[in-house]
């Protein structure tokens, strides 16, 4: 399994964002997306997740026979956390797990909440969570629902030092487990790898 991008070009709202971007991410490795604001990190992740038009170039997940889309194989953690404040912490996580096709028991859910140190809050309404706690709740989805590709958009935003460590650990577990990982970030996460892609170098390039 291998994520291959060839000569990708991205346009948002009719404006050219980046072009001529090619990269490969083999199973078991990760790629950090760096670049100034507006350089297209979010746009790229959305393209891979199937949430953005590919203006030019190709994007494929190599070496898999069935015809699932990349999006169906990928986790996408965006700036928004996709949480419902009207539901409890546990309800939120459970719903996404079930929706993504994992029949999980309350035990699994709490265990994965615990991985981001949220089990104490499981019963509380998500409205009561602090910014970082919300982020952690969104992240606890990642390992509960096994998916080969992780697309994380500034995952460490709002997390305290300890939680950043938990996140980094999860990311390492994922790559070591043979997963593919792309993460955009402005701060540096202490990960096992540091292959980075600087999007500013593709700005203004045509395909």
């Amino acid at each position, binding site marked *: 399994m291998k994520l291959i991008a060839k000569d990708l070009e991205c346009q948002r709202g009719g404006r050219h964002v980046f072009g001529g971007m090619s990269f490969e991410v083999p199973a078991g490795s990760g790629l950090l997306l760096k670049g100034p604001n507006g350089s297209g990190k979010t746009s790229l992740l959305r393209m891979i*997740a199937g*949430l*953005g038009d590919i203006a030019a170039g190709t994007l494929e997940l190599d070496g898999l026979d069935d015809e699932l889309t990349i999006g169906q194989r990928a986790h996408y953690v965006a700036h*928004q956390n*996709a949480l419902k404040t009207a*539901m409890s912490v546990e309800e939120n996580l459970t*719903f996404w797990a079930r*929706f993504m*096709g994992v029949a999980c028991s309350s035990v699994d859910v709490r265990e994965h909440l615990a991985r981001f140190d949220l089990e104490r809050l499981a019963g509380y309404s998500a409205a009561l969570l602090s910014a970082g706690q919300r982020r952690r709740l969104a992240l606890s989805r990642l390992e509960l629902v096994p998916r080969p590709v992780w697309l994380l958009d500034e995952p460490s935003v709002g997390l305290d030092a300890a939680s950043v460590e938990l996140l980094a650990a999860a990311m390492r577990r994922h790559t070591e487990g043979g997963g593919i990982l792309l993460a955009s970030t402005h701060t540096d996460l202490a990960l096992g790898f540091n292959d980075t892609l600087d999007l500013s170098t593709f700005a203004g390039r045509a395909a």
Partner: protein
Amino acid sequence: MKTFLCLVRRELVLTLRQGGGAGMALGFFLTVLVLLPLGIGPDLKLLQRLAPGALWITLLLSVLLSTDRIFGPDYEDGSLELMTMGPMPLELVVVGKAFAHWLGTGLPLAVLAPGLGVLLNLDSALFLPLLAAMVLGSLSLSLLASLGAAVTVGIRKGGMIVSLLILPLYVPILIFGVAATSAVIGVPELMGPSMLILAAISLVSLVVAPVAAAAALRSHMT
């Protein structure tokens, strides 16, 4: 299937807790109910005559006005993106949401309608037809509503556009709905056909709406 049910459950939980759904519908219904006599005067004969139409219009309005809650919140908090990605086909997601919307808005209204009709002293012979027709009709109302919502999700002027979009689709439902309801006191032989047509409309929209809506959502996402 399990996924589908879990989606419906979640939608219902949300509408109920956020006071959309039954509560909202009932509140709206009561509102209209109180306003109507005050507006057109407490003439019981007149009220009785207007009752079926008034109830149907209320039903249509409350469905029309709850459309933005079908996809709006999920669009804003990023849930909709995950849903478009997720393994469940988007068409099915739409069906699920439309179904939940029906359970949360149309159905309660349909069930409450006869009871509240009493206050407009609705002819008790109409109770059953009204109930049946509304249950049938509201289903297609919700499906079409979800189509309208999908087309206008996250775009400016959504509110107005949606009403202009769905209204034409609602007109036939209203006509046959009222026909089916007041057939008993009017032209009894209209009853059967009208009901059938209502059912037919529901079936057609069950096929068309989800596909169209899903397509619209996809193009909104990308």
